[in-house]
């Protein structure tokens, strides 16, 4: 399977992107999409992109649901902080360094996307040598709390999916 079609997940995603772009699932669109997907997968193989593993699709869709809820919640929280009338002297923002166990590139990339998609947290830096990630948090109440959120809410689930 992988010899015939390298990167099956990426190829499927490319086919889906093509069908969405064309806006039809007719035989012509599917045929052309399959051609592009196969070409794209072949290109990835030529470039030597490290193969990723996507396991547990159910866990991935559950994660997507949690991310959606968090996007709403954190947008609301950051909008409140910005519009708060009192000049928030008591609010503190700052950096948190989190030691990650996850080493999968794709898992780390997904974590970066999630943290950016939920306002209030920005991924700043990652040190591959000691596996620590530097995070900037807009409303930093308790650093331990944030380490726990990153590890329990996101890292554990992403490791299930990508490692």
């Amino acid at each position, binding site marked *: 399977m992988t010899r015939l079609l390298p990167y099956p997940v990426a190829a499927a995603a490319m086919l889906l992107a093509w069908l969405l772009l064309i806006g039809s699932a007719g035989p012509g669109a599917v045929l052309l999409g399959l051609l592009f997907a196969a070409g794209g997968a072949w290109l990835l193989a030529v470039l030597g992109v490290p193969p990723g593993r996507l396991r547990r699709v159910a866990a991935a869709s559950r994660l997507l649901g949690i991310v959606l809820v968090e996007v709403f919640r954190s*947008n609301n929280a950051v909008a409140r902080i910005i519009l708060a009338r009192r000049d928030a002297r008591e609010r503190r923002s700052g*950096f948190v360094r989190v030691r990650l166990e996850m080493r999968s590139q794709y898992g780390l990339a997904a974590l970066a996307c999630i943290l950016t998609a939920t306002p209030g947290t920005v991924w700043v830096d990652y040190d591959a*040598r000691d596996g620590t990630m*530097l995070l900037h948090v807009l409303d930093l109440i308790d650093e331990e709390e944030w380490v726990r959120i990153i590890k329990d809410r996101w890292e554990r689930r992403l490791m299930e999916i990508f490692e």
Partner: protein
Amino acid sequence: MSGAEDLPLWAALPVAALLIAGAALGLIGSIGLVRLRDFYERVHAPTLATTLGIGFILLASMLHFSVLQSRPVLHELLITAFVVITTPVTLMVLARAALTRDRREGEPNVPPAGTGRQP
């Protein structure tokens, strides 16, 4: 190009509401750029527009054109996916550039570079 006046009322209302919600989030993000205190805080503000703000606007677009053309128009989903994947790149580049500069200038409030040691 079919105009918005062909849109039935039952669809026009949610489309308008979604557009206003998305635009409001963009505005709040821009206000945040003015109100927040330092660079690292300001980086957070525009993410309102790039997450839920753009989400609302794309939903409005999908609803609008799906109703007008009487078929599902879903390529906005692709825009969502690309925005989600590419925003972290610019944010990271900006934040790391600021961090590098602050470290070199000896700013006291930024964390030192990672030790690079195994725990």
